[in-house]
């Protein structure tokens, strides 16, 4: 069991059968009352947050949650198949867990998979991925003012809006959180 002195960002606890992680905490103490730790938790299953004041001496139950570094192998229908490089164990998770970023996933992409009671509950991608442009109309000369962008298809098949100067064969950096082009990078 954890007590309030164990509370820190990232601590995983079990409450009402759900896994929660601490995202913020602060020591508070009324002049004549017990010390509390004002803690903000995020539900690891649905992303909801809640704030609780946990009194010194109260116990928190650790959640059986662990993180594993895994490599993305391939898509299979609506699922993503990932593999643990250390023991070659494979896991299949719903692509919904990564949302729109699923189409930015290239083979062998390193991901972090969160397990709760041995069940994969979340996949996080690197913030940035590097992808080659496989198709894009050439930009129209002269039309370079402001932030004019054009669609481009990258090697995974995803469509990303890019600046006009991007050409087929360019390598670009894409933000997996926003699905947006960041910059062109050298190959």
């Amino acid at each position: 069991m954890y007590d309030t002195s164990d509370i820190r960002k990232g601590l995983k606890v079990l409450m009402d059968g759900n896994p929660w992680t601490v995202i913020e905490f602060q020591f508070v103490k009324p002049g004549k009352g017990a010390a509390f730790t004002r803690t903000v938790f995020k539900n690891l299953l649905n992303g909801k947050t809640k704030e609780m004041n946990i009194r010194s001496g109260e116990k928190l139950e650790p959640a059986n949650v662990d993180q594993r570094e895994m490599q993305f192998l391939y898509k299979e229908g609506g699922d993503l198949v990932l593999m643990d490089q250390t023991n070659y164990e494979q896991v299949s998770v719903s692509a919904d867990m990564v949302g729109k970023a699923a189409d930015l996933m290239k083979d062998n992409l390193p991901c972090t998979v969160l397990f709760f009671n041995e069940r994969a509950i979340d996949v996080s991608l690197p913030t940035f991925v590097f992808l080659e442009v496989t198709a894009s109309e050439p930009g129209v000369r002269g039309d370079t003012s402001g932030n004019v962008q054009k669609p481009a298809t990258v090697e995974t098949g995803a469509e990303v809006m890019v600046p006009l100067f991007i050409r087929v064969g360019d390598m670009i950096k894409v933000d997996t959180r926003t699905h947006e082009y960041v910059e062109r990078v050298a190959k």
Partner: protein
Amino acid sequence: MLAVDGGFALVRGERGDARVAAPPAWRAGDLVDGDEVVRAYSGEEYPGPGSEVARLPGQRMAAIRSRAKALAALRGFFAERDFVEVETPLLVPSPGLEIHLEAVPAGTGYLITSPEYQMKRLLAAGFEQIYQVCKCFRANEHGPHHASEFTMVEWYRGYADLEAIIRDTEELVAHIVTAVAGQPLASYAGRAINVAPPWPRMTVRDAMQQWAGVEVHGDESAADLVAAVRRAGIEIAEDLAWDDAFFTAFLARVEPAITALERPLILEDWPVPLAALARRKPDDPRTALRFEAYVGGLELANAFGELTDPVEQRSRFEDDLRIRRERGKAVYPIDDKLLAALAEGLPPCAGIALGFDRVVMLATGAPTIEKVLSFTAPEL
């Protein structure tokens, strides 16, 4: 490389450091090479030990100067009102017995968590108006508003009631903030708060009713209060003690509401289970003569119409000790000399403890207590 401080430069050389007079164009914190400033000091981050600039950042130095101003203003304030400044021992055999305070052991005794026992003995000995500014120590208290070692201002008025202490508090805070900031405008969490007296007041029962939706009487059982808190929609465990149920609701709803107020608040008439060392109201035995002062949600001070009855005092000490034992907390000896002084006769009096560091935070706009300390514990 040189680091400049108050007209002097600290020359860091292979054979040790030396202080030399610096040209007037150099400002504290600048890094210089030869005669030239190579990096003007921006003042935010603490460079930390082992850095090239083995010194405090400019902002921290400004806060230390503000502290000194605040302290001078405070001493002037009490001198004008004929208070005697006293210094009682910091190392004592019997620290406070309060259930929620842990003392720091030192030598054969403890460091004080508050100077009140010895100050009350001075009152019993015949002093009528005394004040003290001293360090107090409370184990395991670290947070944005808490440091284990902090500075307390404590004062007492004999033959006076809480009304006089409320006036002192309002005037003192306004006086210190004005001395430091130029006007009675405190600044906290990016807001300016007018601290000119008089301050609005509210009873604890009204605050709990209005903001938490919890009716508090003071003579209900813990189970009844827990039920009332749960009815108000606040999640708490069933077996909570009365005070823990109260403070869970208070922290969840009342404190945030006080934080949002535009003016300071005197929160008065505490229910008797939270009386601590306060007398009961003569006309209302469920209510204690106690108030707390808040500015911008920061709890600045706690005051009591002091308990002077040695029999009731001993019984409250014994209750505290029993609870400490039950909860597995450290058990401190009862201060028999304080009880003896009460038995000799403590005049009717009122007193208050005020967190000096927090007043400096308000006067300087510092967001956390560590910004107004010369060094924080991790920096030692």
